[in-house]
């Protein structure tokens, strides 16, 4: 964490601007990744702070992935998948959302600001919604700046 913060600060100092935040996105292959792809194809402008990891289904996402990302220096984590009811595997996201909700409620308890984590649903056809979600989320993480916590 300390290492990641100094790197971000160094990058910020070099360009003379506010330090950049790093945001990890974990998205499902069938909806949100396709939605993000659609947003790119449509040339919708999006913040550059997001790094995407594609997984088969939100059901594959262990809440510990997000915790590990925070531990490794991520400033925000965004999880997105198919809308409930539209899961490619019928029910993966129904199981997943219970876990994400618990994570969402646990993170503030560990000293991570609630604005740094979000889980949402974006379908393959919602390129504009993806742009909006990402912009909004990255902006709220930027407002908090890089993380300086020691516990996570």
């Amino acid at each position, binding site marked *: 964490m300390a290492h990641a913060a100094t790197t971000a600060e160094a990058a910020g100092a070099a360009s003379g601007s506010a330090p950049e935040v790093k945001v990890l996105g974990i998205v499902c292959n069938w909806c949100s990744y396709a939605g993000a792809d659609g947003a790119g194809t449509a040339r919708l402008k999006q913040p550059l702070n997001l790094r995407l990891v594609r997984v088969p289904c939100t059901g594959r996402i262990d809440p510990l992935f997000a915790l590990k990302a925070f531990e490794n220096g991520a400033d925000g984590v965004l999880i997105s998948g198919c809308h409930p009811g539209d899961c490619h595997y019928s029910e993966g996201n129904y199981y997943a959302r219970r876990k994400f909700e618990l994570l969402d409620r646990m993170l503030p308890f560990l*000293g991570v600001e609630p604005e740094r984590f979000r889980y949402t649903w974006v379908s393959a056809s919602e390129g504009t919604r993806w742009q909006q979600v990402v912009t909004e989320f990255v902006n709220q993480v930027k407002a908090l700046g890089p993380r300086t916590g020691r516990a996570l």
Partner: protein
Amino acid sequence: MAPQPEVIARVSAGPPANPTEAKVRELAKAALAEGKVDYVIGWCYGYDRSQAIPAFVRDPDEADELIVNGLVHHNLVTFLKRKMPDPPNAKIGVCVKGCDSRTLVALLQEELVDRERLYVIGVPCRGTIERRKIEKEFTDEVVDIAFSADRTTVTATTRGGETKDFATDDVLRSQCTVCRYPNPRYADDLAAEEVTPRLEGEPTWPSVDEFELLSPAEKDAKMAEVFETCIRCFACIHACPVCYCWDQCVCRSRSPELVSQRVGPAENLVFQMIHMFHVAGRCPSCGACDQACPVEIPLYLLHRKMNKELYDMLGFEAGVDLDAKPVFQTFRIEDVLGEH
């Protein structure tokens, strides 16, 4: 079976100190004599009368060493996890308090123990005491802890002969003070009349509520301070009755590597969060991990918070209903969660 050599002499329990204790001994003795079980897991005195240790009773005569009082905090269900290995076809008797029975129910829900090979002696519980709270009142070693007949007073004596009385309610383990399930949820025989829960109606969450009021920076500082001291000795996960992956635990895995060899508050907290997430839906906050922790990390903060949120989200309480499904192994389409 050949008698086992005694390495250090244990303190003998003597005649039963209360009716529950007498009944537990009677039930254990009968089960062993009838051959209903190969051994009974209960509690006996350790090397002095200030603490209890788990006891494995194989001989009906040894059943007179079993005790039940405010010292018996151990959750004995932890010896049943990992599909009861010793020996593979053994029939096992086990004593459970209210919270212990909830962990047993959680294991039964997932078919992780074989119900047919179990004989469960239920012990309605009036709370167990936190020995550390008493220890901190003395500079000398505590060697004897005795309870008054009505269990309202605890008398502790040190090696030097110093004696102090405590109100039982002041030295209870914190989870016992808010216990809503003192009576076993699953038992073949009960050793006493059911007792009235200390708390009825909605659960309360001491310590968690106060911690939640801190700012993110304060919480971070507190978590870092607390988890800095973790030596990752694994006592918490070994003592935990519902944490059963053993050598397959992801915290020992190199791929994926969720926990590295680096030591620091963040790694230690991730390690504990693995435990917390993996027992979510089975953990009834029995406090076995807190008792096992040699550096007194308040693990209950994480586990109680998790249970608070699961109750708030889904009205779920672990190990209460034998027919219920663990919370993360099922879903309801109409779940209303806070996704946004």
